[in-house]
Structures are given as structure tokens and as C-alpha cells.
């Protein structure tokens, strides 16, 4: 299938900061690309260049057949954007916000009104639709913002960290909406720093760090890159270092240990028998094991392996609460 989003060598510097340093992006029609990276990796800059909000210092891009630099007006007719920060007018009602966007997309009065009502219904905002947005919760604003991106049923959608700042329940609701959307054939570029989110939603994942792509593939391909499994154990008070010494013999890579939570992650290969052996060894050293699991690598492991630093530590806790 042809690529509906294509970008070559995007460079953008903000003073000394290199937000993008030669990024290539390609998204086949009807698929979801997850742009994954920590804060400051350049995700938002990439989205704002592709949506014509920002001019790149170098590079070129086309979206839905229109050149981002030469025909930005054409690009804007073919895209929907929901930015990192909610961009709705809080003095208008939910309906007025969507209706305004519809008219600015030139849907005409009756289509614009019908579309606004339809989206409010679909995003579970019908009851609140005639209340000023000021009275909405964070999750409701986020849904309205996302609905704004869908008003014109554009063939290409850009969602920049669509679930950032949402509580776990709203996040799961939003995931369902996004999945439904894509099943209807929309092409989607989604940025996220949540590994589970990219894993769950994206066909293809582009991992970026400091303005550069460092890996590209499906979630499974990326996981295969780091190989093997992970043993995770939680040990007793003051036993983390001792446990790390014992577990070193089983590790096929670097052990990550977290003193505060007394938690260790050990990359291994060999599956369940390795876990059994590891637990026996810990027991032999009289190290108290409070919890132990064997798991397949996650995207967080991919990130650690590729960059040497985690995507965002604190997010793990939120994601655990969500799932």
C-alpha cells in the first residue's frame, strides 16, 4: 500500500536544542504509526511539522499527497489534529465547539450541526453537549478535543499524546474510541510516551530519542530485538544488592535494580527452568523473595536496551493501575 504520510530528513532546532535531527517517517494508508519516545524526544515537533504548524529547518514531507511545505493549505484540508494540550474554547459549549470547527472545515450549516451532535453522542458527551466546556472534567475535555479532530472525517489523523494526563479509566475509554476509529480505515499517527499504549494501538512503532529514530518495527519485532524473557523479583528489606549478586549468573544482560521498591529486573533466556533455578539460589542465600514473575520483554525493556534510559519511570505505575 502507498505511504500516506512520508517525511524525509526532518530537522528542527530551537536555538541550541535539536528537537529533530534528521527524522524519516513513513505511514502506509490505513495503518497506525506509534511515535514513541520520552519527553523532549521530538514527537510534538514532528507532529507540528506534519500538520503545518511549524516549518522544519530542513527536510521534506507529504501528507495525503500534499506537500507540507509547498501546499500547506491542501494538507490542512486532509488532516485532523488533536494536540498535546486540549484546544477547545471553554466558554463555548461542547456543541458550539464542534459546530464551529465543522463550519471552518466548510461542511456547511446542516452537515456541521448534524456532525457535531453525532460526535457528542459517540464520545459520550451528548448530555453535556449544551453546557459550557468550563464545566467539563479533564477526561471530557480530552474527548471533546479528540472529537474536534474527527469533525471533517479527514483521511489522516494526528493525535499527539492523546491520553496524557488522563486517569486510567478515561484512558481505557479513549483507547476503545481510537481502536474503533481505525477499524474504519483512517490512517493515524499517534505519539505517546506510554509503552503499553503504543503496544496496544499501533501497527508499527517508531522509537525516537533526541530527535532521531532509533528503532522501527511492530511491537513484536521490537520485543524480539531485545530477546529472551525477564525475571522480576521483589526481595526483603536491605537485600537488593545481595540478590543482584546471586542473580548475576542467570543474567544475559544488565540487571536493573530499584532500591526503594526492592525490585530487580533480570534479562534471561531459557524460560521457566531459569526462574526455578534463580529462586532456589536466592533461597539458598536466605534472601526473602516476596514476589517473582517471568515475563516477555515489554517496550520499556526495548527502550532501555536501545537508549540506556527508560521511557518514563513514573508512567509504569500509572499503566499498572490502568491495566
Amino acid at each position, binding site marked *: 500500500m502507498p505511504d500516506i504520510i512520508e517525511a524525509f530528513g526532518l530537522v528542527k532546532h530551537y536555538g541550541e536544542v535539536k528537537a529533530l535531527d534528521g527524522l524519516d517517517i513513513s505511514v502506509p494508508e490505513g495503518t497506525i504509526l506509534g511515535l514513541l519516545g520520552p519527553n523532549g524526544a521530538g514527537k510534538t*515537533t514532528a507532529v507540528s511539522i506534519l500538520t503545518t*504548524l*511549524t516549518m522544519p529547518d530542513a527536510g521534506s514531507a507529504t501528507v495525503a499527497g500534499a506537500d507540507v511545505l509547498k501546499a500547506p493549505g491542501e494538507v490542512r484540508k486532509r488532516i485532523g489534529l488533536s494536540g498535546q494540550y486540549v484546544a477547545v474554547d471553554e*466558554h463555548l459549549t461542547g456543541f458550539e465547539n464542534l459546530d464551529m470547527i465543522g*463550519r*471552518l472545515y466548510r461542511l456547511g450549516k446542516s452537515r456541521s450541526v448534524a456532525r457535531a451532535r453525532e460526535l457528542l453522542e459517540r464520545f459520550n458527551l451528548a448530555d453535556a453537549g449544551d453546557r459550557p466546556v468550563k464545566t467539563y472534567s479533564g477526561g471530557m475535555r480530552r474527548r471533546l478535543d479528540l472529537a474536534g479532530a474527527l469533525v471533517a472525517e479527514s483521511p489522516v489523523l494526528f493525535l499527539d499524546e492523546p491520553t496524557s494526563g488522563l486517569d486510567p479509566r478515561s484512558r481505557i475509554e479513549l483507547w476503545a474510541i481510537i481502536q474503533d476509529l481505525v477499524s474504519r480505515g483512517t490512517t493515524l499517527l499517534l505519539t505517546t510516551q506510554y509503552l503499553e499504549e503504543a503496544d496496544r494501538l499501533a501497527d508499527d512503532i517508531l522509537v525516537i530519542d533526541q530527535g532521531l529514530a532509533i528503532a522501527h518495527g511492530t511491537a513484536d519485532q521490537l520485543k524480539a530485538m531485545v530477546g529472551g524473557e525477564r525475571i522480576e523479583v521483589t526481595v526483603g528489606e536491605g537485600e537488593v544488592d545481595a540478590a543482584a549478586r546471586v542473580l548475576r549468573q542467570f543474567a544475559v544482560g544488565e540487571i536493573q535494580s530499584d532500591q526503594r521498591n526492592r525490585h530487580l529486573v533480570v534479562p534471561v533466556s531459557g524460560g521457566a527452568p531459569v526462574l526455578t533455578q534463580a529462586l532456589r539460589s536466592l533461597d539458598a542465600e536466605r534472601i526473602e523473595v516476596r514476589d517473582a514473575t517471568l515475563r516477555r520483554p515489554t517496550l520499556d525493556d526495548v527502550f532501555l536496551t536501545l537508549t540506556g534510559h527508560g521511557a518514563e519511570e513514573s508512567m509504569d505505575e500509572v499503566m499498572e493501575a490502568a491495566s
Partner: protein
Amino acid sequence: MNRVTTALADGAIIAKRNLIKIKRVPEVLMFVLISPIMFVLLFAFVFGDSIDIPGGSYREFLIAGIFAQTVVFGATFTGAGLADDMQKGIINRFRSLPMSRAAVVLGRTASDVVYNVLSLIIMALSGLVVGWRIHDGILNALTGFGLLLLFAYAISWIMAYIGLIVPSVEVINNAGFMVIFPLTFIANTFVPSENLPTVLRVFAEWNPVSSVTQAARELFGNIPAGAPEPTAWSLQNPILYSLIWVVIIIVVFAPLSVRRYRTMAHRR
């Protein structure tokens, strides 16, 4: 649709959106309307008897000056509105939509005319209460109000440009005051410019706020019979001189503002 009609149609959508805010947050309107009343009363009663206008009444002299000052101050609303839109991020949504690149600024300057019309009505009413009268027919008076609005509209474009440059709403308010205070005080708004020291007098005479005020005074019939003829060309032809400024300001600042809107860096 061609570019002009697209800009007007989209501008109307944005203006409507801005005006809904008046309905939803009436407090803003209260403030806009109360401050002119306060100005009229303060100047009329505090300075009313201490400043002597040969052959006329200070209160009549004063009102056109307050009109001019208030509508020029009203223009900061334009800048504040745009700075607020930027701060809240909604400008980025507009910039990603296939709408006219002039519409956001055009709509904002247009909706602010409504604010200024309302504050002129309120000021005229409070002026009538403290003794101001129209002496030269309603048609002339309406022309005077029209000129005040047109001038305020031009200033709106300057403020729009500033609003799109500054990083926050607070800055626009301070920046606005820094420009507008000298502009409205070193003028014939509150005292006759003949009484000012030379440097200030020349500035005041060629200050467009003075010519607008002078034009409004003439059109309201508020120039006292014995008042000295102005010596500067700008005040001898205040309507023409004011209109020249209106044109210059719009011709310079409208393209500047629209270009700024088109090319502004995305806030990260």
C-alpha cells in the same frame, strides 16, 4: 470562494465565537462598561472645576477626550484576547484547520468593535448625566462616534500584532498600558494642548489621539466659541489627519499580524 470572502466568512465565525464569551462571562462586560463611567465621573467631578476652558465648560471639553482614551484602551482587549487564545492553545487548532489565515485576527478585531460600541453608548449616557451635550446635530455626532470607532479599530490591529508576539496575557496588559498611557495623556484629551511645554505640545499636536479628539469635539459642537484656532495642520484638518493614520496603521499592521499568525513558532 476567493480569499477575501473566505476571510470574511471565517472571520465572522471567529467573531461569533468571541462574542459568545460576553454572554457566558458577563463580568468581563461589566468591567468594560464600568470603567468608562468611572472615568467620566472622576474627571468631571475631580478636575471639572480646576481646569479652565476659556469660553466653555471643562466637562463638555473633557467628554470627547475620555471617549478617545477609552476606545484606545479598549483596543488592548484585542491583544489580550489573542494572547489568551495562544496561551490556551486554541490558536494551534485554528492553524491546523483549512480556514483563512486572516480569520482569527480579523474576527478578533471585529468582535472588539462591539465592545467599543457598547462602551461608547455607556459613556455617552453618563456624559449626558454630567452635563455634556451635542450641539451640532445628530448626524455630525454619529460621524464623530464613527471616527472614534474607526480609530479604535486601527489601534486594535497594532494590539493584535503585539498580542501575537508576547508570551502571555499579563505582558500584553502591561505592554499595552506603556504605549497607551503616553499616547492618550500627551494629547489634548484632558487639557488643551496649547498649555503644554513646547516638546510635549508638538507631540500632542501631531498625536493622532489629539486629532481624533479634536474631530470629535468639532463634530459634537464642543469647541467653545472663544477657543484659539489650532496652529498645527493636523488639528486644523483633524478628520482627514485621523483618517490618514487609520489607513497607515491598518496597511502596516494587518499584514504584519496575519504574517505573524501564519509563521508563529508552535509553542512546545
